[in-house]
């Protein structure tokens, strides 16, 4: 109890210095948490993948289209329970900043393979009946305040022209990892447009196939069967699990993610240096006090405890405040980025890492001054006063 009181009084002896150090810790720990949450959010799509879905795309690159007729051939492969396809639609809604994912899909087969996209029967029927209809995710609807019946004008980018879609349904999912910020429209409408402008070859192309399988343990074998089917053709395929495909997409941003990770650790290193400086100054100022304590009979270990205790106390308070601040910070960040990330939540792992970072900062910052002070010569230390 006495030592705790002493630690507390020592920690706040120089209130401004301690306060500024704590502010630095709060900023560093919350920034660390935010950056880790951003990295986590990048991988959230991977978490939302299904083991019963494969993605088949061009073996050359994901940007190369595949013939539409591949669907029928894939469907015949043993173990395949369904096939659907999609094209990345692109386009701009009013302003480039209003980014959200838009896919032209084959409605009936798409919803069969993505059962987590839950939409009412009435809305689904309305979507099927309207060639310009669209289904949007719940988050997207909330972001723009859209309702069923609203019109979404899109300025084409990949597919030129002014497009207009009517919202016929809003999907939601019980799985928190499901992306609810996607807009789906009819692939047939896109195909028809391409047929008119570019001819039938362009009209019968898809960006990728989503293949449903009934037995996840056969995913590798079925993938090989699909790719073997189109080997030596003009459009060879590459099939992989949905998770692997998503990881591949994330890997395309690997440099950015590495930079974010590096910055998150640099922030912690900086505050560690600041904190170490604070503790070193503290120890130097109290040289005579530590010498007095040792003269009175207190062991070097007691002096070590005082320094580590004080450092940890500052780190724990600053760290806890930083962790608490992470939540409103991520909420504000989420608000600014809209539906860019499917899931943007501070994970328990992130909180654990934040706590560990604060503790490591507290321990390492005190290590050098504690070692120095434990070895201080009493006579020299007492002369420090004189």
């Amino acid at each position, binding site marked *: 109890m006495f030592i705790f009181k002493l630690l507390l009084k020592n920690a706040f002896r120089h209130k401004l210095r301690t306060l500024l150090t704590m502010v630095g810790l709060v900023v560093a720990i919350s920034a660390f948490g935010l950056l880790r949450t951003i990295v986590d959010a990048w991988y959230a799509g991977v978490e939302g993948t299904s083991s019963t879905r494969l993605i088949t795309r061009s073996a050359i690159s994901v940007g190369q289209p595949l013939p539409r007729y591949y669907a029928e051939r894939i469907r015949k492969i043993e173990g395949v329970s369904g096939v659907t396809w999609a094209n990345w639609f692109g386009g701009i809604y009013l302003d480039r900043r209003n980014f959200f994912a838009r896919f032209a899909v084959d409605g009936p087969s798409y919803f069969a393979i993505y059962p987590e996209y839950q939409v009412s029967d009435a809305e689904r029927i309305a979507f099927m009946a309207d060639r310009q209809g669209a289904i949007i995710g719940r988050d997207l609807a909330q972001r723009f305040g859209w309702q069923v019946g609203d019109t979404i004008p899109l300025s084409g980018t990949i597919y030129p022209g002014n497009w207009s879609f009517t919202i016929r349904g809003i999907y939601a999912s019980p799985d928190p990892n499901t992306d609810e910020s996607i807009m789906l429209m009819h692939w047939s409408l896109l195909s028809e447009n391409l047929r008119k402008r570019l001819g039938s070859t362009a009209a019968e192309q898809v960006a990728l196939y989503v293949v449903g399988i009934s037995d996840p343990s056969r995913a590798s074998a079925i993938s090989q069967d699909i790719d073997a089917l189109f080997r030596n053709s003009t459009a060879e395929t590459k099939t992989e699990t949905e998770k692997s495909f998503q990881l591949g997409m994330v890997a395309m941003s690997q440099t950015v993610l590495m930079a974010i990770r590096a910055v998150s650790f640099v922030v912690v290193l900086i505050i560690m240096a600041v904190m170490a400086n604070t503790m070193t100054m503290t120890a130097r100022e109290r040289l005579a006090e530590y010498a007095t304590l040792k003269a009175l009979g207190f062991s070097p270990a007691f002096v070590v405890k005082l320094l580590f205790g004080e450092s940890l106390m500052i780190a724990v308070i600053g760290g806890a405040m930083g962790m608490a601040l992470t939540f409103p910070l991520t909420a504000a960040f989420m608000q600014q980025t809209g539906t860019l990330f499917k899931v943007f939540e501070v994970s328990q792992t992130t909180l654990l890492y934040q706590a560990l970072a604060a503790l490591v900062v507290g321990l390492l910052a005190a290590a050098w001054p504690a070692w120095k002070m434990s070895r201080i010569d009493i006579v020299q230390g007492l002369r420090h006063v*004189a």
Partner: protein
Amino acid sequence: MSTASDDTLIRIDHLTKTYSRGGQPIPVLMDINLEVRRAEFVSLMGPSGSGKSTLLNLIAGIDQPTSGTIQIAGVDIATLDETALADWRAANVGFIFQFYNLMPVLTAYENVELPLLLTNLTRKQRKAHVEATLEMVRLADRMDHYPNELSGGQQQRVAIARALVTDPTLIVADEPTGDLDRATGEEVLALMDELHHDLGKTIVMVTHDPKAASRASRMIHLEKGVLVDDPADAH
């Protein structure tokens, strides 16, 4: 060599202390032989650099001799390791410093309680000891005050209470009045007189001040690391 008697508390034989500065050995104390009896009040005097503070530090066990022995109540403290020496100091030595060396974040009460944390006393027992000691130095009414709320003389009285609270065998004082004005210094010396006469404490005090030194029952002079003019030698 001095001859030990039953009431000898401090016995120093052939003590030398040499510092090394820039590779050059600098002798500070040379072949010191000294005995201090129990309940003696000894003042160590001498010019600056004579080695009196070094001798006090060696007697208090906060410095190690280059050679020779220092026996305090029969214990050769020169042979103790750091941990054993720290335990020995906690149990046997009370320190009074020139600049008081109180913990600024602790109250007078807490400063006096500090050495008792190294004992097995309960909180209640510690409280009784601290209050009685503060009463003795006439600071019972200031026990909740922090050092910066006390005058220099009061701070030194708190330091004396801290030195006294564990009832040590020996009290060492390094220029206890050096930072005080004449009147306040007198009060502190009067208090040390009380410790000596009323409580029978053995005190070794370093001072520059002949008047302060005259309070002691025995004055020892050091010059250039050598004992000169020790009245005990005349006996």
